[in-house]
């Protein structure tokens, strides 16, 4: 009825991981979350080193040092835009470790029964994730063709591959000494990982990586069962389930089907209204998500356009202004000279909704502030924020001054779909990394925002 030091440390580490994930799910506490996660990991490593089973430190220390020597530069010099790639390659490392530990354990003990099953699952997931992550890395880095590659009977091939690998594990559970099967198993797992990624397009890669994450977690969890290590089970299970959910959420936010990502091969995107042009992915968000961001922002610039008028959303927008202002968020309205369809169109509507005149800012004045704006909330506007007016001399709106929404830290755009505005042209803004599309009728979407902010953020 007493606890060893390492056991206590493990418990604390497990708690830290939970707190890390909890804090990580809100921007305000996210950094605290990471620090807690780091502390947890440190405790786990220290705890392990203190275990009396561990006696040979030289290899370990060498490993730790070399690993850090590789990891630190990656983290520091990898440009921010390449986070998905970084995660993919780091994933491959983690999964490889898991797979190798399984291999070592297999050769050491040749366990059977439940333990062999756990080990088999660990290795299957480990190897598969390793090769799959490398593939994802390749696709993201465009070292491999990023378009989805499909062939006839793909699913049958994949499934039978998986079936054979599972069968081998099954056989090993009963006859662990049949080690000649082992390399075959490893090969199958690795090939399966490759096949899994081939049919998935580059745009889905971030989601795939989140999913592989989940696999790596489950692999660690299986390892925990095999090695009888609770910390591994907890951390692995946490990781497995949160990674899984995260990949589902990301799918939803990016408007793609999760089953397609899971099984691949259907990586088609819905075609955007760009007509014949190649379809491009956009990120969309729900009212809840958007409300969270707005509620945490310091400054919001609302950019109303013709869509606000069509939806008659002016009253709702004033309400949004009210709830945000009450929270201490600075809300201003940027009025483009030709927003809407008649001179002063926005003015008449906003005046009707009793938005104070001093909250309306002219284009020239607000543009200089845009870079310091947390969120530009574009409500049914399109042409007047289209950067093509500045960048593309061939565009029909070239030369028109625009509201520089693209400069703000986060861009949210409420519109019903991907269709074009008055000028009939596509808008680069929609595809920016920091842009969230909020699809829906402006009036009802803003109403949901108001409701969400006033009920869940006070």
């Amino acid at each position, binding site marked *: 009825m007493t606890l060893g030091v390492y056991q206590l440390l493990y418990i604390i580490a497990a708690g830290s991981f939970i707190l890390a994930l909890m804090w990580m799910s809100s921007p305000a506490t996210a950094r605290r979350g990471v620090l807690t996660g780091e502390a947890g990991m440190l405790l786990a490593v220290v705890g392990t080193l203190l275990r009396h089973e561990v006696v040979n430190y030289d290899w370990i220390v060498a490993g730790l040092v070399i690993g850090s020597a590789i990891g630190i530069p990656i983290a520091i010099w990898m440009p921010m835009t390449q986070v998905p790639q970084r995660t993919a390659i780091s994933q491959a490392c983690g999964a490889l470790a898991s797979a190798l530990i399984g291999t070592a354990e297999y050769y050491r003990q040749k366990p059977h029964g439940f333990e062999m099953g756990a080990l088999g699952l660990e290795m299957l997931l480990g190897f598969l994730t390793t090769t799959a992550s490398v593939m994802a890395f390749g696709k993201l880095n465009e070292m491999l063709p990023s378009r989805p590659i499909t062939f006839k009977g793909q699913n049958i091939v994949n499934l039978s591959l998986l079936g054979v690998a599972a069968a081998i594990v099954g056989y090993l559970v009963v006859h662990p000494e049949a080690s000649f099967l082992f390399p075959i198993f490893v090969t199958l797992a690795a090939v399966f990982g490759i096949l899994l990624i081939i049919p998935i397009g580059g745009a889905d890669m971030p989601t795939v990586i989140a999913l592989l994450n989940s696999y790596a977690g489950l692999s660690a969890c299986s390892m925990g069962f095999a090695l009888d290590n609770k910390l591994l089970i907890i951390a692995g299970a946490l990781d497995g389930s949160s990674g899984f959910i995260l990949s589902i959420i990301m799918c939803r936010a990016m408007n793609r089907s999760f089953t397609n990502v899971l099984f691949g091969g259907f990586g088609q995107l819905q075609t955007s209204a760009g007509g014949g042009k190649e379809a491009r992915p956009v990120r969309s968000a729900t009212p809840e998500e958007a409300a969270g961001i707005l509620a945490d922002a310091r400054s919001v610039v609302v950019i109303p356009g013709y869509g606000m008028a069509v939806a008659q959303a002016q009253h709702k927008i004033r309400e949004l202004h009210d709830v945000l202002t009450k929270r201490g968020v600075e809300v201003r309205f940027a009025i483009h*000279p*030709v927003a809407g369809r008649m*001179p*002063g169109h926005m*003015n008449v509507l906003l*005046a009707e909704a*009793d938005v104070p*005149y001093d909250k309306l800012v*002219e284009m020239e004045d607000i543009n200089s502030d845009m870079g310091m704006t947390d969120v530009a909330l574009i409500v049914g506007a399109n042409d007047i924020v289209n950067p093509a007016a500045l960048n593309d001399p061939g565009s029909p709106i070239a030369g028109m001054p625009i509201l520089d929404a693209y400069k703000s830290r986060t861009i949210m755009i409420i519109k019903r779909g991907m269709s074009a505005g008055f000028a009939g042209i596509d808008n680069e803004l929609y595809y920016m990394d920091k842009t969230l599309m909020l699809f829906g009728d402006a009036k009802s979407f803003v109403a949901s925002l108001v409701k969400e902010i006033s009920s869940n953020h006070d």
Partner: protein
Amino acid sequence: MTPRACEALIKLKLEVILEAGAGLDAGYPDEEYSRRGVRLGSRAQVFEEAAVVVQARAPGANPDGGGADLAALKPGQILIGFGEPMTALRETAEIAQRGVSFFAMEMVPRITRAQAMDALSSMASIAGYEAVLIGAVTLPKLMPMMMTAAGTLTPAKVLVLGAGVAGLQAIATAKRLGAVVSAYDVRSAVREQIESLGAKFVVLDIESAEGEGGYAKQMDEAYYRRQRELLAAVLREQDIVITTAAVPGRKAPILVTKEMAEAMLPGSVIVDLAAERGGNCELTQAGHTVVHQGVTIVGPVNLPSRAPYHASQMYGTNVVNLLKLMVNKEGALTINLDDEVIRGTLVTHEGKVVNPKVSQLLEAGVNA
């Protein structure tokens, strides 16, 4: 009197005679009346036959045709209308002499029950609205803010001086048109009312002056001087100034002096609703529009006549409501002097001036 008001009278079992063509200007053709059972006749016929004569402007308030009407009145007749009994003392005395019972609509007491007969409020409402339209039309700017490809048009600034019924209506209308509205009144109690319309109350650092019955009381000259000084600064920023300040029975106070008007923005407009009572602006000429050093001063008279359709409707309703107090179920007329509303409104009765304020003034006039 609108056709509908006449209908209401007929329902009270009264017979109604109307001067032919009287409703035309306000958009009520004669057919509308006759269809509802109103008898049409000449003006003389009306005075000859009616027990109750209802006018908008009774002799006291009608310098043009008033004399003739006065002569046509018969003893025992009841006369209802605006008649300025506190200023048109001569006409009032004459009406009394003729044995006519004269109900002056401006004398309807300002009690809750009498609100339905309060034609002053009705007319002031219309005047406030029309004043803003006059201001908007006269102003060389647009009222609302507009951000357009050809630059931003700033909203017009409107200041309303005196936030009685007319002033409040002016505030509401100017707000509607998109102007930035502020208002000032000596009675600090109206601050809440001004703000309840979404306008700003201009705080001047002088004390309040609320008299009895909701009317402002007469203040001394020092007070007005101080008020003017403080106002001058506010005026300099306005595009439209609408003045409605009145103290009942007296000449309107001068709120905007010549110097103050001269200091205003070129192109700005003053609409003086007190023009008929001498004006709140020194430069006002009743019935005329004066341009003085770039500032336009409009002194409209009889503003309700600019919306005759609705003015008649409201006035008609007010009169009908008053008559309801005098008519019993059989349609017979009685003047119940115990009724506060009747007593307050009745100026002359049975050959005498019965309103104490008016008779006081008359005596003072005789003495002077």
